[in-house]
Each structure stands twice: as C-alpha cells, then as structure tokens.
C-alpha cells in the first residue's frame, strides 16, 4: 500500500499538469482568435476611401466568420424563443442578422483605426472570456470583454461587453420590451425589425 502512494501522487500530479497545460493552450488559442479577429474588425471599420456599403459587407463577412449569429439571436429572444413558431424563428433569424450588422457597425464603428490589446482570459461555464482593451491615442483604454464559445471544434464569439455593458443583454432587454408592449406577441418584434431593416436601405 505504502508503495502505491508516490505512484498515485505522481499520477495525480501528471494529470493535473496535463489538464492545466491543455487548458492553457485552449486559452492561448482563444486569445489569439480574438486578437486577430479584433484587429481585422477594427481595420475594416476604418473610415477610409471605402464606401459605407463596402465596409458593411466586409464587416458582415467577419461577423459571420467570428460570431455565432444564430445562437446570439436565440439568446437575444430569451424566453420568447420557446413561444415562437418555426416560421417565426426562421424569419427572425434572417431579420436579426441584418439588424445586428447595422447595430455592430454603428456601435463598434467609433473604435475604428484603434488597436485591440488582449489582456488575459478565463473560463466561465462553457465559455472562455477574453479580456481586452481598445487603445487609442489621447483617451483612456476602453475595456472590452469577449465571450467565446467553443462549439464543434470552432471558436465563435457570442457576446461583446464594452465597459461592463453587454451587447447581447442590451438587445435581449430591448426585444423583451418590444414583445411585452405588443401583448407578448413575437410578431410585434418581427414587424419592428422588418421596418427597421427596410429603413436603412
């Protein structure tokens, strides 16, 4: 029995070490993912010779590459997802994508041309949170946290939190309010999103 102890200890140590090494590797990968995507996004948003439409197209490409838009839309609908019919869900998914591109271009656009610096990361439930800062000249760094989900061998962002304010929660609160004001009917939200999306064109 006594002889088994050191062996067990070694085994425990080895597995713990191996585990933390993979965890660290996973964190490093996630950090790299955010750093490269963030930099590209901020560059795309630079107000340059590009037209508004071109910028939006490029940004839309990055969004669908880096973000799990379906899941974000699903979270943004919150508990009303369960009440929506299959047709409503699929229309919502399309409307939401247009809506979110416009919103993200507008709300993240003010950081165009600045640099994203990844600070650290940590695990949170089944997600990894990557802490970063957007550094521009002449103003204090802006704290931006990314919630990244590792689903099906692919990293996807599901939330961006700027100075403690979550884009996803803001959207969910807003959608919930619209639905509540139309008597708890998801159709009310779809109508508003349809209006909104046709406004911009």
């Amino acid at each position, binding site marked *: 029995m006594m002889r088994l102890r050191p062996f067990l200890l070694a085994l425990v140590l080895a597995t713990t070490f191996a585990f933390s090494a993979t965890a660290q590797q996973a964190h490093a990968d996630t950090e790299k993912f955010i750093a490269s995507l963030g930099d590209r996004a901020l560059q795309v948003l630079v107000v340059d010779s590009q037209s508004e439409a071109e910028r939006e197209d490029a940004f839309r490409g990055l969004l669908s590459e880096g973000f799990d838009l379906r899941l974000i839309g699903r979270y943004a609908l919150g508990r009303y997802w369960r009440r929506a019919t299959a047709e409503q869900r699929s229309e919502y998914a399309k409307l939401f994508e247009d809506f979110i591109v416009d919103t993200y271009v507008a709300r993240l656009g003010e950081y165009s041309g600045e640099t994203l610096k990844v600070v650290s990361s940590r695990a949170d*439930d089944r997600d990894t949170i990557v802490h970063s800062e957007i550094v521009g000249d002449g103003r204090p760094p802006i704290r931006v946290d990314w919630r990244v989900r590792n689903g099906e061998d692919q990293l996807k962002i599901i939330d961006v939190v700027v100075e*403690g304010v979550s884009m996803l929660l803001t959207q969910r609160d807003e959608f*919930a*309010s619209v639905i509540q*004001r139309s008597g708890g009917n998801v159709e009310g939200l779809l109508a508003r999103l349809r209006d909104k999306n046709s406004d911009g064109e």
Partner: protein
Amino acid sequence: MVAACATPGDEPGQIADPLEPINRYIFAANLAVDTTVIEPVATFYRDFVPDPARDSVRNFLRNLESPVTLANDVLQRDLDAAGVTTKRFFINTTIGVLGLFDPATDMGLARRDEDFGQTLGTYGVGPGVYLVLPILGPSSLRDVAGNVVDYYFDPLNYYADNTDRGHITVLRAGIRGVDARARTIETLDEIERTSIDFYATIRSLYHQRRQSDIRNGSAPSLPKLDLTGDTEDDRTASLEN
C-alpha cells in the same frame, strides 16, 4: 407586489420598471428638450471650445468632486482607493493648477468615480425601481437617494448655502451636464438610430453600467447568460432552422 406585475423586472437581470408609463412620458419630454436645447448647446460647446479647454473644465469639476469620492471610498472600506483619491486631489490641486490638469493619471493614479448609490450597491442594496428624472434622465430609487446623500458630502454645497451663492451649484451642474452631453453626441445618436425601442435600450444600458460601476469593473465582469428553462434541444433546434 412589484414582482407580480408583468414588468421587465421579472426578466432575470433586468431592472424593475413599474412606473414605465410615466417614465416613458418623461423620457419623451427629455428627448424633446434635448433635441431643441441641450444637444445644440452641447454641439456648440464641443465645436467652439477647444479640446484642451474642455478637458480642463472637466478636470476642474472632477477635482471638486474629490471629497464626495473620498467619503464613498471610505464608506466602501476601500482604503487603497481612498489613498488614491487623496493623492490625486493633492497632486492635481497643486501641480495640476487647481485641478485644471490631471497629472495624477499620468503618474499611474487613475481616477475612479464613486457615489453613494454605488456605496449602497456594495452594501447589497438593489436599484429598487427605475426612474426617469426630468432633464437629469435615467436613475433609480437607490441612486436618487445616493444623490441626496452625496449632496451633503460636498463641501462646495455648504459653502454655497452659507454664503447665499446657490447659483454656484446650479452652474456647476449645468456645465457638467453640457460637458457630458458634448462627449456623447455621436454615441447617443447612433444608439437611437439603431434601436427599435430607444427607451428600453437606455434603461438596459443604465442598469448594466451601474452594476458594472458597483463592481468597479472587476470580475465577474460579465453578466451571466441565464437560460432558465432552456435545454440543449432548443439549441439544436435553433441551429437546424
């Protein structure tokens, strides 16, 4: 009682808003005042007063707030923060020429705003209900109470009261408001443009921002995504659509 109503408060993480009809009314009135008076004044201030001058105005006003911040640092038992606030005050008042400049930040003493609403938050007091105040905008029951207490932490208010110079505090509030508005012109315009319910968006932003301030930005910096009642099946279904 409040929880029984179908207010947004019954969504996890949302602020209760039983006064929503009144709040929306005041919100709309505030927007009208903003469009006709405040935003034009703020735009003028931003476009015609040079950046360094505006920064100095803000630095000066912030330095005057130091006693309030210090009192709340102490009440939150955050003696490190109290030390930083004190050092900042002395450095900026002397080297920073009566607070017009902010050399303390360059020395690694970053400013952190504290108020009694946040102090109550660290004691575990929730926001109570959401309030939209005329002109002043979004607040909560807790934060209004906080503002009243902060008034008594501020030596300038005693000075103004005792010398019949009440206009000083009004003037200060006005300048602070215009300065703050001047720095958010584009941001607010964009939020309004991209919102389908501007009132609900601002309510959510206010609440999240206050929660974050109370935590001083430290972990947990992200609100939990609460999927009560959801299952993995739902998720799969969403991906198949």
